[in-house]
């Protein structure tokens, strides 16, 4: 995918082994193991305070490790200074130098490594053109819009062709429309440069659409690593399931009785209902037949996998309806738990009515209620 004429693409491999980070008495990272392949667009996804930004800063060398090691291209850089790592970073706030023009901002990294002036001038123009701010070179950051500032930060990061590109929620300060556009552009840019990119976001939709692979952080631990599809199709735990998808998966309290699933007062036959177990997708546990007597579980059903039915299924009460025109989200109460159902139907149920819904075949995910881990039958 490297563009023609691109001089030698540089893309690093990243390996993190047992990374531990403590801030005072609180442990922010509890031993993270992670591998990023060269040229990959890798997203670190998780709620705020889950350790994803800390992990990124460890890669940059802006945080010191309290345990474990970091390798770039197989070389241990755990104790290398930020400047020695040959990585570039785009900060959430962009961190542009306000007293310099766009040209000077982009030129700064090259100036610091002592490139000759004519080479700098050419490289600055190339980088600026690439992100579409070639006409703004004489402006100062304060005179730019948010989107333009973001591009300037990108140009400053790509200008010296780093081997690793770190992005810390780079889109979070843009308005919704611009965010969608820039997301696609960012992806194109990374592809054309062929550079390895590690991207921090708390927006699961962003991660799902932009990344080759995603690492999901929960409370300073890795909850799951995999391709967006793998994570969506087979979330490793109830927490991951509740975090992924728009809207996320419904989790209903249930009891697994041998071959049937009891949700509230309704019973569903497991046969053909449960997502078939296959492949290793993150930590999972298999439940043997004898154990299956009356196990408390969480039944995970995506909003799109619920459908109304005439009889059987589950009793649900309509709380309210969010109508998007082409589709709608129907907010339900099923056995005392809030759940959502995506509906394309034109005639939507009125609020307060009762109806019956059932999961589509092979769409129910099971998680142990005790620890939230995925259960494969």
């Amino acid at each position, binding site marked *: 995918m490297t563009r023609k004429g691109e001089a030698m693409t540089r893309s690093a491999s990243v390996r993190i082994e047992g990374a531990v980070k403590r801030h005072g008495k609180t442990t922010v990272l509890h031993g993270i193991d992670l591998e990023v392949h060269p040229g990959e667009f890798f997203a670190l996804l998780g709620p705020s305070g889950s350790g994803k930004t800390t992990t990124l800063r460890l890669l940059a060398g802006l945080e010191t490790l309290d345990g474990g090691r970091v390798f770039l291209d197989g070389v241990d850089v755990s104790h290398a200074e930020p*400047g020695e790592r040959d990585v570039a970073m785009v900060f959430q706030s962009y961190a542009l*130098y306000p007293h310099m023009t766009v040209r000077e901002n982009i030129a700064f990294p090259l100036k*610091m490594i002592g490139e000759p002036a004519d080479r700098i001038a050419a490289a600055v123009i190339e980088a600026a053109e690439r992100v579409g701010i070639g006409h703004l070179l004489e402006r100062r950051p304060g005179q730019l819009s948010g989107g333009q500032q973001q591009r300037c930060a990108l140009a400053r990061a790509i200008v010296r062709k780093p081997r690793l590109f770190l992005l810390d929620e780079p889109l979070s300060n843009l308005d919704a429309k611009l965010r969608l556009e820039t997301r696609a552009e960012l992806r194109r840019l990374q592809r054309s440069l062929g550079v390895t990119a590690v991207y921090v976001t708390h927006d699961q939709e962003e991660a799902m659409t932009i990344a080759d692979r995603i690492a999901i952080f929960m409370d300073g631990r890795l909850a799951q690593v995999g391709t967006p599809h793998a994570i969506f199709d087979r979330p490793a735990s109830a927490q991951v399931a509740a975090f992924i998808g728009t809207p996320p998966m419904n989790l209903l309290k249930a009891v697994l009785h041998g071959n049937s699933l009891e949700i509230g007062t309704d019973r569903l036959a497991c046969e053909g209902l449960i997502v078939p177990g296959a492949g290793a997708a993150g930590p999972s546990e298999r439940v043997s037949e004898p154990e299956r007597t009356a196990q408390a579980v969480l039944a995970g059903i995506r909003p799109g996998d619920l459908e109304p039915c005439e009889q059987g299924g589950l009793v649900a009460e309509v709380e309210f309806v969010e109508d998007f025109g082409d589709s709608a989200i129907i907010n339900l109460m099923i056995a005392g738990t809030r759940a959502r159902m995506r509906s394309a139907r034109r005639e939507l149920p009125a609020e307060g009515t009762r109806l019956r819904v059932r999961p589509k075949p092979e769409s129910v995910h099971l998680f142990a209620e005790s620890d939230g881990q995925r259960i494969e039958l």
Partner: protein
Amino acid sequence: MSSTRLTRPGAALRRLLMFCAAAVLVLVWAFPVFWGFLTSFKTERDVLAWPPVLFFTPTLDNYRAVMQGNSSILPNLWSSFVVTSLATLITMLFAVPAAYAMARLRMRLKRTTGFYVLATQMLPPVGLIIPYYIVLQKIGGLDTYSGITAIYLSFSLPFAIWLMITYFEDVPFEMEEAALLDRAGRMRTLWYVILPQVRGGIAVTTIFVFLNAWNEFLFAVVLGGNTVRPVTVAMYNFISVEQTQWALLSAAAMLAMAPVIVIGLAAQRHIVKGLTVGAVKGGGRR
């Protein structure tokens, strides 16, 4: 919307009251200056006239006397200038890196160091005069430029450090980190990225330090002498037991105030910003 309309008359009244209060303050502050300005153009006889005269024949004799005569204060202005410039220059040379270190570097004993820097400001200056006198006497520093400058540093440095810290703290961490990732290293990050952003703070601090030293009287009168006699001390000579030469004193005072007023007017905008820095964020630090 309706609430803003409701408060509008109230806001106007408040503005009027604020204006009146400001006017009173300006009057109180400006009157002595204005009166001194008038007095500097009066003859000694007009000065002592009762009731005071507002209209008189102005004379430049007083200025001539304090600039050319026996009681010329020009050497004293020079003396002030030397001590003040030296103190300001050295203060800023040390205060800027010190403040940066205090604001940014992770180092041991930072809190303790910060406290001791501040503690030097807590002592009343009068309490320090005798120790300072004895120390300077022992090392031969009385009535020397180096001695007096050193003493001035003892109060200008902590002040400048604490003021500069608030400016450094306002520079976002990420900007510094970006520069570090761009391989600028500590020193070049400071030079290219941090210092340009605290330029205003450096200007304000320099002015404050300069003004404080320029206006200093207590240490100068005790620790100075015939060699180092700043203008503040020289002016005091116009006041004696028998009489006070008000006209000469006023003319000298006007000359001594001139640089202060010029600097003040030129840097007005910066100074106001300097006084309110930290008002929003980290205001308790200073």
